[in-house]
């Protein structure tokens, strides 16, 4: 296997840790104002919250190959991908808190994060990011500008019409588009076996005449390798690819999800193979980093997230009447 460079490995570790610290902090803050009775409408961060704990390897393994000019569309569970793509952390946090300083001044919230500086967008409709990513790839091809477009979706989205239409269209147009499926095995409470006619979605690529890959084990190095190949193909004008990555969700589908549908012991077993401590151990065992070096990365990450949270907390709320603006360009 082609290993990532040392620099890339350390980048990936740092961004996985950043992501995880972000999600842990958000989980705590989300519960502010929601006790003794849990009411989603209440508290510092209202609404739904979909956290990415455990899925960090997918974000860093792919985004390690991407520049600011490359395009990413993501889902209702976007934080790890937003962070790995280089979205402005302070403004992202402020948007999640619904503050005027947020990426969209509070109009989007956690599921609608847009950062044009790094070409990142996400959406709450399953599969909705597929079309726009294909279109962005088409746009680069037509303009003769470099760049690839990556659409992150969940394994549940592979059964939505938008998935199939977009893959076909990307193949017909031969555009630099990569679809990355995060297979965390659960579409809320419905297991993949119950919803999907094939055990692995890489085989579906054959329907569209494009390469398909399945990456096992939630391993950032392996994801990095396979994603790298697909992205290189796209950059070389050789067209789209489909990658499905085995990962897992350490959190519920959304905050407040009691996860009664998960078999007993499943989550405990997954915590045992949490990808972040695993990568930490591997870096030390491979002699790529010292314990002290990693401690510094972790501390820096914690401080960075705390800074973003402070920024969000201290920022003002939007004026209520601002709801009526920014409808048209």
């Amino acid at each position: 296997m082609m290993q990532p460079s040392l620099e890339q490995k350390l980048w990936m570790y740092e961004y996985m840790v950043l992501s995880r610290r972000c999600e842990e902090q958000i989980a705590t803050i989300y519960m502010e104002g929601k006790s003794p009775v849990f009411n989603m409408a209440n508290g510092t961060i209202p609404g739904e919250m979909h956290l990415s704990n455990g899925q960090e390897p997918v974000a860093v393994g792919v985004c390690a190959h991407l520049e600011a000019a490359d395009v990413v569309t993501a889902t209702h569970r976007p934080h790890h991908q937003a962070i790995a793509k280089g979205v402005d952390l302070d403004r992202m946090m402020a948007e999640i808190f619904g503050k005027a300083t947020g990426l969209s001044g509070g109009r989007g919230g956690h599921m609608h994060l847009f950062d044009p500086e790094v070409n990142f967008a996400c959406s709450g409709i399953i599969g909705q990011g597929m079309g726009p990513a294909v279109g962005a790839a088409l746009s680069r091809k037509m303009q003769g500008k470099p760049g690839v477009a990556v659409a992150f979706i969940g394994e549940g989205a592979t059964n939505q019409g938008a998935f199939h239409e977009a893959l076909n269209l990307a193949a017909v147009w031969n555009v630099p588009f990569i679809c990355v499926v995060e297979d965390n095995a659960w579409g809320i409470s419905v297991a993949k076996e119950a919803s999907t006619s094939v055990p692995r979605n890489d085989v579906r690529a054959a329907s569209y005449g494009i390469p398909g890959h399945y990456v096992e084990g939630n391993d950032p190095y392996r994801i990095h390798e396979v994603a790298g190949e697909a992205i290189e193909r796209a950059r070389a004008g050789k067209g789209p690819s489909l990658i499905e990555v085995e990962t897992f969700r350490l959190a519920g589908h959304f905050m407040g999800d009691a996860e009664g549908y998960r078999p007993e012991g499943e989550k405990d077993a997954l915590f045992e193979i949490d990808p972040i401590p695993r990568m930490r151990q591997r870096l030390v065992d491979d002699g790529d980093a010292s314990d002290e070096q990693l401690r510094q990365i972790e501390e820096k990450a914690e401080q960075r997230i705390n800074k973003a949270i402070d920024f969000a907390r201290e920022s003002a709320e939007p004026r209520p009447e601002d709801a009526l603006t920014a409808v048209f360009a």
Partner: protein
Amino acid sequence: MTQSKNRKLTIARAMAESVAQEMRADERVFVMGEDIGELGGVYGNTRGLLEEFGKDRIRDTPISETAFIGAAVGAAQDGMRPVVELMFVDFFGVCFDAIYNLMAKNIYFSGGALKVPMVLMTSTGGGYSDGGQHSQCLYGTFAHLPGMKVVAPSNAHDAKGLMTAAIRDDSPVVFMYHKRLQGMGWLGTEAGATVQTPEESYTVEIGKAAVSRAGTDVTIVSLGLGVHHALKAAEQLSEEGVEAEVIDLRSLVPLDRDTIRQSVAKTGRLIVVDEDYHSYGVSGEVIASVTEHDISVLKASPRRVAYPDVPIPFERGMEQFCLPSVEKIIAAYREIQPSRSPSAASV
């Protein structure tokens, strides 16, 4: 504006002319949709474009509305200016998420950081036995949902100007053209839609209605084919000394409420002609725009001549029974015309 020779264009030709002129001026403009390339569009509105601009900029797509409309949004956000066709407005069901949840909301969800400079052009209208899934107008459906501008021209002059304005707009614009105004070979066309159209490039302001005919006794508001029915009804009424003022909305979003209100304040009587379904739509919106503003201007109850709340039937007699017509507009006027007898109820 030059008045060169006889330059009467069909709406189809006017649309194609606008798109061609904008494509010559701006290499970011491109067209995609089903049959818009080789065929020149089922409705003739892209005729000649493939020959002039080639396959890269004039793209025939697979039957994948969700994908190519979604792609148009992504391309528009990345600096291109796509003109996309949804062949029949009735087909919006298969791809409406990409339209109302994506195209129409991304500017807002991004707090204005993104522009979505795309045009979604789509055919509307029935009256030629194409059945209930190929004959709808659905003006109200698109106008009702926030974040997309909506225009509906009644003639070639306005069609060209509105298309040019739509392409230049940084917001998404839904361009709804009526099949019976289009001027294609396979369907009869309302003659009044084919009008003198300047050769040069120009815009018609989106959000501004036109007073197609000035009058003092009753205001008839409509859009698309309805404007032509209204003008014919106005001619008939004129023979009995009743002068109708006809308002051609031209745009639904933004809606030119000022022009509507000014007219009704002058005439005191309002008839709305709308080929879309009667309830929960354009006709109710026009009436509410008047009554919530100043109900005292009305000398009689407002009237609507709209399509009943039923799916559109195939059989000719049944379909014609449902469609707005000149006769129905006259009949609506009869219901609200000033009474001859001073003791009668209406003022």
